[in-house]
């Protein structure tokens, strides 16, 4: 019975391995393919945490295998048997100390990175501001400085930090572009901020990160990063050729459903701030502070 078991296990492991390799060689493991400083900084921490935790779990697994093989309850097993051996201050100090040291190192790095990632990745450069609104079940992007809006895709210039201001006019979701960096929740009546930056031009996959009902699975969007000049050209093109977004258009967008990609050459002024306030932000001091400099009436 035993050999066939091993064969089954081996076949499955090999199958898993092959599928990992075939799928894993490419660019599809997006977290491992950072296209900007935020994702890269996060990936550095991933390598560090992998390395440091491996220091503990690999010895544990090897030790387990060795102990189970050596101390099996078989007649004539020559290994020592000491049923009363139950205490060793030295050993215990060692394995209280090892995880404390590891957690200490990881904690320090986490502390630094958590603060760093809350700031612009390139403070010397002037950031682009994009306001993001998750709807059922689509993504709406406003460019307050360019006065344009898009649905289910966003274009950004490379080598320039982008501050995404996030809210929702629907249940809570999360804004995630793994190649550029980690996610942040979008919440109705609230504004959260996420700094990202692309170094490499390209088209990046984005998806909602928090379940919002039956249409959630299709809440995909694209982020296209291109050099500043190309970005400016794209803005001009949208301004010149795309339709205006009226209040009626906006109201229609907020209705549940799916849509393809859309572009708008303008949008009703202050619609983002107004939505935040209307959806509950009026009760929150935090939002008033966050939006303070944009709000005409605050």
């Amino acid at each position: 019975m035993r050999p066939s078991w091993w064969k089954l296990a081996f076949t499955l492991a090999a199958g898993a391995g092959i599928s990992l390799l075939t799928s894993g060689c490419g660019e599809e493991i997006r977290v491992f393919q950072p296209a900007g400083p935020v994702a890269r900084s996060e990936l550095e921490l991933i390598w560090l945490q992998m390395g440091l935790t491996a220091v503990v779990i690999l010895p544990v697994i090897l030790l387990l295998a060795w102990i189970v093989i050596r101390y099996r309850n078989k007649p004539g097993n020559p290994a020592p048997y000491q049923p009363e051996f139950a205490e060793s201050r030295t050993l215990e100090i060692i394995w209280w100390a090892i995880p404390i040291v590891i957690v200490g190192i990881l904690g320090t790095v986490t502390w630094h990175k958590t603060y760093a990632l809350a700031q612009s990745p390139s403070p010397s450069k002037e950031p682009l501001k994009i306001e993001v609104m998750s709807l059922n079940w689509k993504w709406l992007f406003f460019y307050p400085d360019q006065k344009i809006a898009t649905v289910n895709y966003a274009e950004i210039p490379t080598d320039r930090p982008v501050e995404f201001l996030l809210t929702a006019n629907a249940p809570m979701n999360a804004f995630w572009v793994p190649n550029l960096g980690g996610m942040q929740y979008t919440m109705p009546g609230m504004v959260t901020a996420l700094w990202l930056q692309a170094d490499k031009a390209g088209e990046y996959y984005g998806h909602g990160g928090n379940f919002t009902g039956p249409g959630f699975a299709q809440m995909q969007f694209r982020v296209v990063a291109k050099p500043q000049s190309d970005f400016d050209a794209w803005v001009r093109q949208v301004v010149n050729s795309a339709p205006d977004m009226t209040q009626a258009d906006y109201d229609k967008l907020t209705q549940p459903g799916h849509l393809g990609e859309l572009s708008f050459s303008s949008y009703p002024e202050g619609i983002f701030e107004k939505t935040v306030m209307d959806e509950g932000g009026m009760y929150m001091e935090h939002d008033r502070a966050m939006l303070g400099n944009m709000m005409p009436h605050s």
Partner: protein
Amino acid sequence: MGDSLTNTAGHFFVTGDPLIIASDVAIVLVSLGIVFTLTYFKKWKWLWREWLTTVDHKKIAIMYLISAILMLFRGGVDALLMRTQLALPNLGLLSAEHYDQIFTTHGTIMILFMAMPFIFAMFNAVVPLQIGARDVAFPYLNAISFWLFFFGALLFNISFVIGGSPDGGWTSYPPLTELQFDPGVGENYYLLGLSISGIGTIATGINFLATIIKMRAPGMTLMKMPLFTWAVLGTCIIILFVFPVLSVALALLLIDRLFGAHFFTMMYGGNPMQFVNLFWIWGHPEVYIAVLPAFGIYSEVVATFSQKKIFGYKSMVASIMAISIIGNLTWVHHFFTMGAGPAVNTFFSISTMAVAIPTGVKVFNWLMTMYRGRITLSLPMLWALAFIPAFAVAGATGVWLAEAPTDYQYHNTYFMVAHFHQALIGGVVFGMLAGMYYWWPKMFGFKLKEKFGKWAFWFFNIGFYVCFTPQYILGLMGMQRRMYTYTADMHWTALNFVSTIGAYLMGIGFLCIAAQIIHSLVHMEKDLTGDPWGGRTLEWSLPSPAPHYNFAVIPQISDRDEWWERKRRGEQDALKPRPEDIRDIHMPKNSGVPFLMGVCFFIAGFGFTFGWIAVGAAGLVGVLLCLAHRSLDQHPDHDIPADEIRRTEAALGRL
């Protein structure tokens, strides 16, 4: 009139989906089968007298265990449906709505109606025997706890045939679960089912805390307590801290939904983030509520099957207590991405990682317990050994998730799904199975045969890695949890397909366990020794199963491994009762009221689910009547005469 009736019935009973119609048919057939069998064998009275009215912790343990295994089946079927839907891109087996219901019920059932009753089965089966007590501190309350769990679970489970299942995720975040986005009754089922069983859980926490503090045999100081009992003590402390928080969160959301309040709505000053906080103040410690008893089981099993004292007992106790305190300070790591700011995120990153320290110490101590021991690979030990690598990996990925900057990339992805399944299956399910195999002879009086058990072990373990390893990578590729389908151009197909194969292997593993139980029932091999494994603690000094009153004479304890030390010194007989020491034993009477109280809670829950306030109120009046009955009961207990005890002990060959 006829039309409107059909219409109402159509809304009331879920129809249309062939899967659900098939389940309806199965439910009706199984219920008829049960009724027929009980009637045919004239077992109704037996069922009422021996089970429904019992206050005996040993029988309550068995009822918890059966419920847990049934719920493992239900939650497992949910899992297989989901995995089948995700095996290939764009499959249409389940619609988005149906898939959403299934992941919601899968999560809720596995955590609250599978893991919780499973750990309570172990609490009940073991703790009183292990500390030399005749029952728990409040046996009547113990029965109430069970029936509240049972009827809470029943209420939750009927949702998929009557009215529709909840579909907002087991985490049930508003505003998605507020009336505005979720007008059906499904969410009410969730809130009421969990509220009712939650009351029972709080009562269990109080009960076992009191039992362990007050009812230990003379001589058993805290530092002589077996580690499983220590783990239960830690668990009860966490339950008392956090389950009331869940109850409050659920109640407030229910008030929002039923009576139009605005605790968690977006408008009128409501704050959905507050629910998320309250939920995880319970939800994260809940993980430790489930895993600490498993740690306790591993400590017992590893020591017994290595024939060696547990290594570093004091460290083990310190770890349990450290986990039960630090575990309460980590909840924000479930929503680092909600924007609380770097100071909060840093604090909760470090507090979360700190939990890994005592946990790591425990793993090393288990390894050192085996070192220079004599290891027997019986089923309980196999599951305990399988736990170590599984939990080492889960612990490592847990540390990765704990760090806010990287959590931003892992959060809510399949990476996180893989992590918590590895922690909860590798930690809790493996532990509960180890405990079930270990204490099965003590609970039922016969051993489970190894043959199908070994099959189950290998199928389940291999399936476990095949299922969840690919999910880590899927998460890093960008696959989010709770997506009912995906497109082929994402390149997620191969890994999803492998994961589905793994899930089916685990399903086969479960069937092997079922086969093992049936096989062992048919070819029953009674455990006449009371100590089939060479045990170390007090429960193994009793016959299997223990008599109704557990200990004819309460023993005097002098060692941590009392039974092992007695055996070593050849003094086993000193733990048997001497006829002249046997006195009348004061025991609680059986009562049908806890069962009726569960029924009343069920009626109340069902009424409120549908917004039928009168029905709900009637149910609550019933609950009050049950409470009044208990308060006015002058004779809730009786004495077992010494002669009867002598006869019982003699029949067991102990006099």
